[in-house]
Every structure is written in structure tokens, then in C-alpha cells.
């Protein structure tokens, strides 16, 4: 049984299609990153998985049933994108309150330890820094020992140090065989903390695999040069070129074989090429290529 199964799911707001025929399945026990730029439909998809919003079409199945049923059984824990705490309550009071809502929660001390909050347990929520409040929200998400943990851009508002500590906490939790799905628009986060990356853009899945596969699938390199006012027709037909872009006088060719492309550029055309550079692909490039292709 898949922990998450979305079949042809769409969601529109008026004329805006936020999620457009999304299909994805996540096996139990995996840690999956949902990667995409802002506005890709990540939060909308997550909110549908949690039953907070209803899809306009298609079917959302969580742990073999409806999202509402999974939430009611206490099998889901979630850290939503925004959410303030109750300022007058202490960290310990908040965590204890939420854990008692679940049928088989983790122990209070264990939650505080995993979320790195033991030292802050007695502090009032309105006296926490942004990163500390995020850790409390993570603690609330894991408090019920959910089978499925969903995190929507969990490290927003955290500094570098807090991020590292946060991901360690997340991996500790996932290590116990639980399913984790997190949304992010940081490639490194997806790369370092998941065993599968699903890339979505404009509400559709555009790539799905391990971070390494996604990188190798987009092994394109970039050839960039200045062309001045010369005609640009035919550049996208050069050997190896998968995409060509012209912005002002600068041409950017995405190519799987930069040697062949450059050779053909010099031998096969009479263009006057200046400032030629070959740039290797990194994750950021891979990501941009994926988002552009869709």
C-alpha cells in the first residue's frame, strides 16, 4: 500500500489552475522531496493530501483511505507553511497538548529531545526566535508519532545552523521507518535529505527519481556567446543542442555535447562568435532546465 497516492488530481481557483492532473505515488517508509519553484503547486498539493482543501478533480488517497480518515486516526502529522503558536503557552504545554490529541503519541521528553527543544521547554511561545518556533512546529508535527509526516517548506525562516540541526532531527524521525514528504525550493535540501525527488512545476510532475538521476538526466552543459546583431536562425539545429535562448545579444545554447556544438558553430556557420564560454551543469541548472521544459 502506498502512503500517498494522487490520481489525476487537479485544483483550480477560478481560472487559475494550481494543480493540473497530478499523478504521484509514495511508498511507505520513503523520504520524498517535493521540489519546485514558488507557485508550482506544492502547498496546494500538500493541503489536499491533508484534507485541508478538496481537489477540483481526481482522487487523493492517504494510507489507503481518505485524507480526513487518516487525520482522524492520527496517522498524519504536518508542519504547514505558516502558523503561529499560542503565545501565552510554554513550549512544553503546547507540545503536550498536541501529543495528547493522538491515540499513540511519542513521549513528551522524546519529542522535545528529537526536536532539540529540551532547553526551551519552559519558555513561552511568544519569546521564541523564528527558528525556535519552527522547531516547536516540527515537534507538534511529530508529537503523535504519525506514520506519515508532511512538511511544507520547513526550513523557511531558519538560519544555516538551524537548518542543519533541523534536517538531522527530520532524518532521525524518518529513520524509524516512517514516511516523510517535504516540500522545498532548495535543491541542496532535496538532494541531501531525501531518497527520492519529485519535481513539480505549474502543477505537474516534470521529473521523478533520486537526486542523482535527476542531475544525470539533465547533464546538459551551457554554451554561451555574444552574437551582436547577426541572424540567429538555425542555432537550435546545431548538433547536441536541446534548447536555444537569445537575450539581447547573448545566445545561450543548452547542449548534451558541447564539443560537437562548438565545432559545428565554428565550422558549419559563418557567424562571428565572441566571448564564448562553456558552463557545466549544476543542480540549479538542472532544475531550471526541468522547469523550462515543461
Amino acid at each position, binding site marked *: 500500500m502506498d502512503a500517498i497516492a494522487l490520481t489525476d488530481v487537479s485544483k483550480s481557483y477560478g481560472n487559475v489552475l494550481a494543480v493540473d492532473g497530478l499523478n504521484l505515488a509514495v511508498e511507505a517508509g520513503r523520504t520524498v522531496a517535493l521540489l519546485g519553484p514558488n507557485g508550482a503547486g506544492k502547498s496546494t498539493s500538500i493541503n489536499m493530501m491533508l484534507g485541508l482543501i478538496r481537489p477540483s478533480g481526481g482522487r487523493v488517497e492517504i494510507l489507503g483511505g481518505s485524507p480526513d480518515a487518516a487525520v482522524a486516526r492520527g496517522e498524519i502529522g504536518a508542519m504547514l507553511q505558516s502558523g503561529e503558536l499560542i503565545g501565552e503557552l510554554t513550549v512544553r*504545554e503546547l507540545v503536550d497538548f498536541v501529543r495528547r490529541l493522538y491515540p499513540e503519541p511519542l513521549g513528551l521528553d522524546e519529542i522535545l529531545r528529537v526536536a532539540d527543544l529540551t532547553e526551551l521547554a519552559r519558555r513561552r511561545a511568544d519569546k521564541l526566535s523564528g527558528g525556535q518556533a519552527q522547531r516547536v512546529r516540527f515537534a507538534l508535527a511529530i508529537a503523535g508519532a504519525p506514520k506519515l509526516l508532511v512538511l511544507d517548506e520547513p526550513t523557511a525562516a531558519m538560519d544555516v545552523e538551524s537548518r542543519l540541526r533541523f534536517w538531522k532531527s527530520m532524518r532521525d524521525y524518518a529513520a524509524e521507518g516512517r514516511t516523510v514528504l517535504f516540500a522545498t525550493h532548495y535543491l541542496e535540501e532535496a538532494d541531501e535529505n531525501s531518497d527520492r525527488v519529485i519535481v513539480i512545476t505549474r502543477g505537474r510532475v516534470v521529473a521523478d527519481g533520486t537526486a542523482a538521476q535527476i542531475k544525470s538526466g539533465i547533464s546538459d552543459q551551457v554554451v554561451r556567446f555574444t552574437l551582436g546583431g547577426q541572424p540567429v536562425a538555425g542555432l537550435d539545429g546545431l548538433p547536441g543542442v536541446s534548447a536555444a535562448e537569445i537575450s539581447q545579444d547573448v545566445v545561450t545554447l543548452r547542449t548534451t555535447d558541447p564539443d560537437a556544438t562548438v565545432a559545428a558553430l565554428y565550422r558549419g556557420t559563418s557567424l562571428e562568435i565572441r566571448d564564448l564560454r562553456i558552463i557545466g551543469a549544476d543542480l540549479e541548472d538542472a532544475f531550471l532546465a526541468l522547469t523550462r521544459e515543461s
Partner: protein
Amino acid sequence: MPNYVKIEVLRMLRNRRYIIFVVGFPVVFYLIFSGIWGAQTDSGGVRAAVVLMVSMAAYGAIAACLMSTAVPWAQERQSGWLRQLRVTPLPGWAIIVTKLIASLLLVLPSMVLVCLAAVLTQGVRLPVGEWLVLIPALWIGAVPFAALGLLLGSLLPADAAQSAAMISTFGLAILGGLWFPVEIMPEAMKSVVHAMPSFSYADIGQHLVAGDAAPPSAVVTVVAWAAVLGTAAVFAYRRALARA
């Protein structure tokens, strides 16, 4: 759910605004008013110290219901706390029931303090039987105001809920004759006053301290308001949940 009620009460008891405006003000008003007029007696022979005790307890209850419900509830909807609760196994109905119970519990501190102030500073003495009817009547009678608090909190954004709670509290207090005797109001206003839940609510208390039974018309008025505001609050709450 007891645990949820506990944290709701706890957080308000730590809220400075609640302590000052809801718990503090009615007692302070009582001390001032009864210090000036406490010794007078009305046509029915009841001392003003006793009449004022009922009025200020009623005012405190209304303030507690509106302030401790409308504003935090509107904030929770806006800040995402409600969404956080929606992804836990806590059922939707438990949230509104908890809010109602917590709101009624938060009525008690100011009510008890006003009565204590009356007993200690003005030497007010009632037969035990009267206390045992008066306090529960004022307590249960606060239901329409708790419903109004939930209604405002479900409908309005936090800033507006704050102003609306304030205006409703003062409006209900003044038009209910809690701050000024109804007798001094112009004739045209009296019909408005008599339709107010706050007037009937306090009126029940005034009859009880005078040793009379609660007037049925006042009981009917309070119950009718409770039904209307309660129904509206449930509808508004469901709408707010769906939009969380």
C-alpha cells in the same frame, strides 16, 4: 478535551488584557459605584450595593464572554493555529464546544470577585439559598454572550473582532442598563433596552436578589437570544472551518 479546555483557560489567565479589562474593571467599577451610592435603597427596598453587585457581575460576564472568545478565536483562524489543529485527530465540533466551555469558565473569576467585593466591602448578605440560585443563573445566563463572542470571532478578522467585541460589550452594558439605571433613559430607548439580552440577563439576577422568582419573560428573552446567537455561531463556525 479536558486538556484542551485547560490550556484555553490557562492562556487567558496569562493574558494581561483579559486580567485587566475583564477581571479587573468590573471589580473596580463596583468598588467605585458602591462607594458612592451603595447605601441607597431602591423602591423595592433592595440596597444599591446589592443591585450594583448584580449589574457589575453581569457586565463582567459579558466582557469575559466577548473578550476571551472573539479576539483569540479570530486570531487563531488568521494565524494558522486553527489549521494546525485541523491536521490533528481533534474533531471540528470539539473546538467550538471547548471554546464555549472555556468561555463560560472564564466568566467565573470576575463574577466571584465582584460578589466577594460586595460581601467584604459593603457587607452584602444574602441567604445561602439565594446565592445558590443567583450564581448559577448568572453563569448559565451568559451563554448568549459566549455565542456572540464565537460568532464575532468566526466572522471577523482579528483587528475588527477586537473593536467589535469592545463595542458589543459596552453597547450591551449601556443598553442593558448595567451602568446607568433604565429609569433615567428616554422613553423611546426603553423598548430597545427591554429587547436586549443583557437587560433580561441582569433583570433575572435583580429579581433573585430581591427574593423574587425570575420573571418568565426575561428567561424567555435570554433563551431566545441564546438560540438565535447559538445557531448563527454554529453556522459561522462551520464556514470558518471550511475556510481554514
